[in-house]
């Protein structure tokens, strides 16, 4: 039996298990650029229209978010607008797929069952990489084809598809190494996800100044392939080389460990529980604290970076009166900076909502894993157990927003010598997002209590909010569709006036949803 025996069988199994999940990812990734291109075509029918946006799009803050605008053309603009989102999506798809078909299987012991059959030592890893790689290939090819169909140049379309595909391959390989390091699928996802986030940050900082930083990031490479702007094909080779190198490393590491074991060895823990581990809340604290701490750190850093960029933006634009007026109009606020900050904290709100949903859906994860049953066989009541987890969704989200707002206020305030004034202002801009994030928590609880199988749809709702925020204005969607997102109702602080009505409404909706969910949960079967 060779090390690869059974790979084909396992690959087929992986595709069967993912027969719904992967097509959804691939289609989303393939359609997004086309939708953007089609929209820009409508928005800027002439060259003159295109030229008029150039100045705005070259401001540091927007360059940090989307990358540099290499060429003002329909294709150039499309690539600029959608590339970062595409790369993050394909990176996530690839790393989640690899972890799912390696560590998750190993952790749940299913792999042990399979390995006992005729399956070679490296077959599971190979099957996972082949699965992710094929999905990357199809996503890239379809993205290119769809772009071509909108009438964009073939070379550029191909380059964009290639950039998407090779980035996916790189992150599949990064995940393949991550799963060798730890015994725990969640930790492996966290490691690979941190590399993805770090790549984004490196590129964001690099593109606004020290260019060499972008060249340390796989996401930077993909953007510097320059689709529709004088393609530099050799850059794609960097990502392919990295993927090959890391895959080789993953195989070497896998050869050195036992099934189920990891390179970062498991340290023994305490033989007795600490005094605090005596209630559902004590348990929830143990289960949530690591995640919350990681998020707190991340949001503080992100808040500081975004706040710090604000004053550079102001300096840059202040010299151009025309532009200042225009951005002020766009932001619908008193000044350029406030418009920028309002937009930035809108995004921060959505990012924090990811944590909110993650913490809320822990309820279902615990139940599905069978860890709820033994707890409910003790004195622990159902609602008390659910609330002990929801505390983290509700209060944790508030802490995250506070961290982002305070750090942003400090960074921005320090630059314009107004810490005392800016900290409360930006804290407000961040905290006002809280009720919208709570609505998603409420939705999660409602689904969990009333239709438990549908609980993961909460993620779909979150992605819908993100799409509505990103594309709602661009796609000219009718008002009531855009308004379906709770985030559409949040006052755009710090520029706009604060209004209590939407905040109270959103909070009320969240509470009603959560209450309905808890009532349903008390009545339904567990399991």
């Amino acid at each position: 039996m060779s090390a690869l025996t059974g790979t084909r069988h396992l690959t087929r199994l992986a595709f069967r298990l993912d027969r719904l999940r992967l097509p959804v990812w691939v289609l989303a990734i393939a359609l997004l650029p086309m939708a953007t291109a089609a929209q820009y075509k409508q928005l800027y029918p002439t060259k003159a229209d295109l030229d008029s946006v150039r100045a705005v799009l070259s401001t540091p803050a927007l360059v940090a978010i989307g990358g540099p605008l290499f060429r003002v053309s329909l294709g150039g603009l499309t690539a600029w607008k959608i590339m970062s989102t595409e790369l993050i999506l394909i990176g996530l798809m690839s790393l989640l797929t690899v972890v799912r078909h390696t560590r998750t299987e190993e952790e749940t012991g299913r792999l042990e069952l399979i390995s006992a059959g005729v399956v070679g030592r490296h077959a599971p890893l190979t099957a996972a990489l082949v699965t992710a790689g094929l999905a990357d290939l199809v996503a890239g090819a379809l993205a290119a084809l769809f772009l071509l169909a909108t009438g964009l140049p073939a070379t550029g379309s191909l380059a964009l598809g290639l950039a998407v595909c090779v980035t996916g391959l790189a992150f599949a390989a990064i995940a393949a190494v991550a799963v060798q390091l730890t015994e725990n699928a969640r930790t492996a996802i966290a490691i690979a996800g941190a590399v993805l986030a770090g790549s984004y940050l490196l590129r964001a900082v690099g593109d606004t100044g020290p260019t060499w930083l972008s060249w340390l990031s796989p996401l930077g490479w993909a953007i510097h392939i320059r689709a529709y702007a004088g393609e530099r094909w050799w850059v794609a080779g960097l990502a392919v080389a990295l993927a090959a190198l890391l895959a080789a490393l993953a195989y070497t590491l896998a050869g050195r460990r036992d099934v189920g074991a990891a390179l970062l060895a498991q340290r023994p823990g305490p033989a007795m529980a600490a005094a605090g581990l005596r209630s559902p809340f004590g348990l929830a604290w143990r289960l949530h604290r690591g995640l919350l701490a990681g998020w707190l750190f991340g949001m503080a850093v992100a808040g500081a970076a975004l706040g710090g960029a604000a004053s550079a933006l102001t300096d840059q634009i202040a010299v151009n009166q025309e532009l200042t007026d225009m951005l002020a109009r766009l932001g619908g606020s008193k000044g350029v900076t406030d418009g920028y900050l309002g937009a930035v904290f809108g995004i921060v709100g959505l990012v924090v909502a990811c944590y909110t949903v993650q913490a809320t859906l822990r309820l279902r994860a615990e139940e599905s894993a069978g860890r709820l049953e033994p707890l409910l066989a003790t004195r622990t009541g159902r609602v008390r157990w659910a609330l002990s987890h929801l505390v983290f969704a509700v209060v944790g989200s508030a802490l995250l927003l506070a961290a982002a707002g305070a750090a942003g206020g400090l960074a921005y305030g320090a630059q314009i010598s107004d810490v005392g004034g800016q900290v409360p202002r930006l804290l407000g801009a961040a905290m006002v997002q809280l009720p919208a994030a709570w609505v998603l928590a409420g939705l999660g609880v409602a689904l969990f209590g009333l239709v438990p199988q549908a609980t993961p749809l909460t993620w779909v709702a979150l992605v819908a909010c993100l799409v509505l925020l990103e594309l709602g204005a661009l796609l000219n969607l009718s008002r009531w569709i855009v308004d379906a997102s709770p985030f559409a109702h949040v006052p755009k602080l710090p520029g706009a006036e604060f209004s209590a009505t939407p905040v109270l409404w959103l909070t009320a909706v969240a509470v009603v949803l959560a209450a309905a969910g808890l009532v349903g949960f008390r009545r339904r079967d567990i399991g």
Partner: protein
Amino acid sequence: MTDAISVSGLVKTFGRTRALDGLELTVRTGEVHGFLGPNGAGKSTTIRVLLGLLRADAGTATLLGGDPWRDTADLHRRLAYVPGEVTLWPSLTGGEVIDLLGRLRGGLDAGRRATLLERFDLDPTKKGRTYSKGNRQKVALVAALASDVELLILDEPTSGLDPLMEEVFRTCIAEERKNGRTVLLSSHILAEVEALCDRVSIIRAGRTVDTGTLAELRHLTRTSITAELAATPTGLDALPGLHDLVVDGPRVRFDVDNEHLGDVLRQLTGCGVRSLTSQPPTLEELFLRHYEEELVGS
């Protein structure tokens, strides 16, 4: 004395599956009760109803004098449960889980915890994700056995244990009985129930097909024997307790009630035994033999 558990006419359906179909179960206070049935018979479902995790569609269930669905928290103070499939929190150690479950039940006997850890040979410092199935089961067992409760509900607690640990488990249950605790022990292995239980309820496809003391169910405990003898045996078919005899020259095959095993073996030895294998009948065989007509009839 009142009954610790009494279940009557219990029905539970999942979509089109009728998991429980009028199940009856009575567990007297202070007894070790075997809850026997093949896989998928509805043992776990019954136990989940008794724990208030599932709501029955019809029938009544009384647990320690209360309603398992309404009086959940009060009842759960007085019982400990070991699920059939134990999953632990990956980041918590076995010791932490034992303490947590014990405290959530209202207290744990530290001395007994230490003794049980030693007897089950369990390392409490390992993280949940590194335990094997058997060790996860031991964590749940230690947590349950070290709790000061009246009733133990154990769902196939030995399915992941090796024979040595099964022996330890049997000793522990024998002690629990001496201490006056009530035990509901579900199993799909007849021999295990035989070794441990005062009374047994046998279920199949969500219905109770037989219930009684082991003596009353003695007809179930037979051994299948295959032997090769030096000479063709005579007089075997006249022996009491012998069933399904097949004689093929010097080779014989038959089932014998365990209480007559000694007589039959003496008779065989008289003929000169060249080889002999014996095995207890599987539960499935028993069902085929005893309840087929009943099931066909229903």
